[in-house]
């Protein structure tokens, strides 16, 4: 079937109701997945506060992010003194092993040379027990998805050292929920793999209550493990939409020769099959029985719900990697997408989507660099009756009654954004049930009135001749 790709920039200038966020935000999340790490945002105070707020509202956890709190004076004369002060204070209060420093638009526009400043700071303070890792994340270049990839890559570039071959595989994730990370780890455990999963924020920003509060939560990818990633037999990366220059897996391949298996997120049967096939080849064995069962339950459930799903014409929006996964899942279930949109500008995702949508029965519109004004227009034109995506789409429900199956980031108007599960066979099934039940809920709450109105009016339009005798 035809797909239509809309390029927003040729149509309009103003971004009306944003569908994405800024680069350093993704950087913050990625750094939070490294063991014993604190993050400092080099820029003005508000940026760090907003990034905390966005994360706090999603994860419902305290998320501390420091700022170098640049003001007018530093904007003119340079922010080095503030950066140093900020690093001093972060070290004192949080005592981290790693400090991630992400830049803001302000710092980038000022032209701050973070590498030099950090090297000088480390030298002057005789610091060899704290690693300070800068990442350039000017918001005016990309979205939070790219910030996430850039920070993950920067961490790997910082630590990865040539080392002896070992059996621990590398697993590099995109921006998914904490529950998804835990599910991926469970799958790897069931297969019996040893692995380094990065960045692992499944514990650090979704902390179980243990009775102990620590300023930096336990968990996160161990830096020693990261340094040994070059000795891994293979890297599995869920980053089909990630551009080469930001791809952590590609870095490990090009620099250290670690084979890269770049996969889509395992959402849907086929995408999960791809992961299982890859794992099977690496392990040299067949799929564990318990996972086979999970696949079976998923297929069984798909049959249960396929007729309901056929009535959906979903809008799918959010980060590139996620929208690809959800599109595949919808296609497999006979829910042919009407509109697929991302706030990111990634030329990779459109091509991938077009390949999948070839099998669609209906026309779909793909929008990159999207805002909700553009999405709204497309949705109304296409008659979407359901959406999959983050809280930014809440206006579609408010204004047009289109229900949203919440997924992605940020979920700030519901609890449990961090617990939304959608990867693997079990996760796909959990997601599919929510999806189908949303369709059913909508149908059951509206069909009586809708049928009544439609059919009674038709009935009334027929002239009553029952009493006329021929």
């Amino acid at each position: 079937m035809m797909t239509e790709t809309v390029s927003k920039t040729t149509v309009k200038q103003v971004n009306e109701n944003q569908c994405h966020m800024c680069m350093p935000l993704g950087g913050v999340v990625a750094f939070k997945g490294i063991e014993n790490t604190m993050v400092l945002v080099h820029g003005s105070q508000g940026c760090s506060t907003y990034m905390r707020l966005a994360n706090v509202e999603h994860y419902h956890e305290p998320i501390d992010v420091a700022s170098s709190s640049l003001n007018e004076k530093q904007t003119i004369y340079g922010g080095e003194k503030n950066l140093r002060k900020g690093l001093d204070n972060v070290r004192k209060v949080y005592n981290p092993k790693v400090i991630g420093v992400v830049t803001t638009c302000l710092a980038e526009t000022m032209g701050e040379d973070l590498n030099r400043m950090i090297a000088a700071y480390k030298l002057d303070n005789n610091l060899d027990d704290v690693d300070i890792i800068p990442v350039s994340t000017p918001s005016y270049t990309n979205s939070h998805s790219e910030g996430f990839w850039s920070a993950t890559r920067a961490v790997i570039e910082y630590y990865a050292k040539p080392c002896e071959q070992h059996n621990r595989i590398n697993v590099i994730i995109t921006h998914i929920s904490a529950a998804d990370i835990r599910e991926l780890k469970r799958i790897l455990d069931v297969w019996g793999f040893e692995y380094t999963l990065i960045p692992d924020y499944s514990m650090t920003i979704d902390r179980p209550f243990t009775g102990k509060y620590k300023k930096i939560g336990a968990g996160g990818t161990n830096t020693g493990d990261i340094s040994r990633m070059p000795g891994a037999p293979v890297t599995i990366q869920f980053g089909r939409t990630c551009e080469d220059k930001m791809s952590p897996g590609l870095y490990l391949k090009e620099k250290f020769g670690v084979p890269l298996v770049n996969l889509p997120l395992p959402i849907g049967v086929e995408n999960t099959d791809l992961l299982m096939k890859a794992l099977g080849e690496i392990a040299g064995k067949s799929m564990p029985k318990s996972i086979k069962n999970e696949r079976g339950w998923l297929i069984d459930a798909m049959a249960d719900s396929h007729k309901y799903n056929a009535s959906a014409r979903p809008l799918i929006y959010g980060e590139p990697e996620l929208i690809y996964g959800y599109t595949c899942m919808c296609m497999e279930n006979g829910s042919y997408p009407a509109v697929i949109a991302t706030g990111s500008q990634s030329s990779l995702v459109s091509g991938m989507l077009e390949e999948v949508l070839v099998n669609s029965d209906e026309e779909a519109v793909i929008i990159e660099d999207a805002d909700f004004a553009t999405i709204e227009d497309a949705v109304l034109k296409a008659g979407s009756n359901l959406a999959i995506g983050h809280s930014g789409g809440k206006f579609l429900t408010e204004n047009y009654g289109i229900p949203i199956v919440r997924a992605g980031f940020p979920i700030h108007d519901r609890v449990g954004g961090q617990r939304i599960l959608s990867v693997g066979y079990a996760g796909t099934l959990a997601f599919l049930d929510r999806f189908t039940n949303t369709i059913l809920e909508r149908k059951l709450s509206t069909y009586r009135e809708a049928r009544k109105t439609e059919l009674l009016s038709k009935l009334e339009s027929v002239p009553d001749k029952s009493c006329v005798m021929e």
Partner: protein
Amino acid sequence: MENTCPLISETDAALITDRQSSIMTAGNNKKSISCDVDSLAGSVSQRACVFSGARVVLNPVTDAVHLVHGPIGCASYTYDIRGSLSSGPNMYRRNFSTDMKEKDVIFGGETKLIACIDEIVEKYSPPAIFVYATCVAGMIGDDIVAVCRGASERYGIDIIPVESSGFLSGNKIIGYRAAAEALLKLITPKDGEVVEKTRKLNYLGEYNLGGEKWVVERYLKEIGIGINVAFTGDSTVAKLKKAPGACLNLVQCTGSMHWLAGMLEEKFDIPYMDVNFFGSQNTIESLRKIAAFYDDPGIYARTEALIEREMKAVTPVIEKYKKKLTGKRAAIYVGGAFKALAIIRQLKELGMEIVFTGTQTGKKEDYEEIGNLLNEGSIIVDDANPAEIEKFLIEKKVDVMAGGVKERFLAYKLGVGFIDHNHDRKDGLIGFEGAVKFIREVYVTTCSPVWKYMKEGLKEEDDDRNSQQDDS
């Protein structure tokens, strides 16, 4: 050093000694607090920025377009940021950004800003556009004043620059001022225009969160006083332009509106008075103050009748929950002093003890007032950070905290109840009915069964704290 308190010592591994002078205790050994200064780098301040200050003040103008001139983040983080309700237009809930890209940063963003304004006017013909400057816009020197003037002349509508570049200060109070200046520009009659004087009043610093303006409007209507326009809750551009026609300005949120109230007095001869409708006692006092201004026997009588009737509903609720809440220990950390003072008074009415209070933007005189209301030994902090909040919540054995969303989950992690008093809240807490809602919220969180399970865990922590000392 005269200002030094023993609250942070060199042995407090997790606290920053540079912040000594921003912390004090209420009571006899009074010291002046250091406040109204830039946040310390790396301190993890809870403060937002100048842009955010301007944004929260102006955003409730319901039919204006709010256009953020900057990269995407500034707009997307403040998208639908307030729980302000509207009785009419919903334009304020749309969120516009010029979405500056690298090219705009290098070559200047004015061209894009002009194009965006053109597009907005063509699509929506709004009565006004507020154009907010962000860090980058300010830094690269985009002349938003000139762009707005040009576009304003071209379209014959108010296109008003808000000079809110974030780097101007880490204190959003500077942004309140930028917003107030924009409002003053909007409401100053153009040459030849005359605004008729009325017996109505303006209600400044009321943002209609959860419909709060409508509650007070109803009380005033009942006693015979009309609201000319509220700033900026549920306001429209046309209503705001009638502002010079009021005979009195009520100032509720003093932090955001005192300067503007002063300017309105100077320019239009409108006197102002501070009011506070949070809590039943504050509401009663404010209503009586307003009645006294009008000095009309009918208004006096109706005011007293309203108070008597409403308190019949409030008093039993206070009595009921006071039994459960007396002696509970509370902490408050909020954006502004107005809010802190309002909460202190309400919690005291419930027999609670406030052991720790702080604000992001308080001034010296605010902290003095706060200090006078608190018992000896209560902690007062300006521009606190999570480490300090954590320390004082634990040390002071706090049962419940009032604050915004960033503090909420820290409190929960420590087994402390939490009262939301943020600008994004959905339920009104104002007036007599708001007081009842507030009391109920204080009760449900302070006395929730949940904390039993958390505190069992925290007790374990106490038990093995000694053996864990090297484990931070």
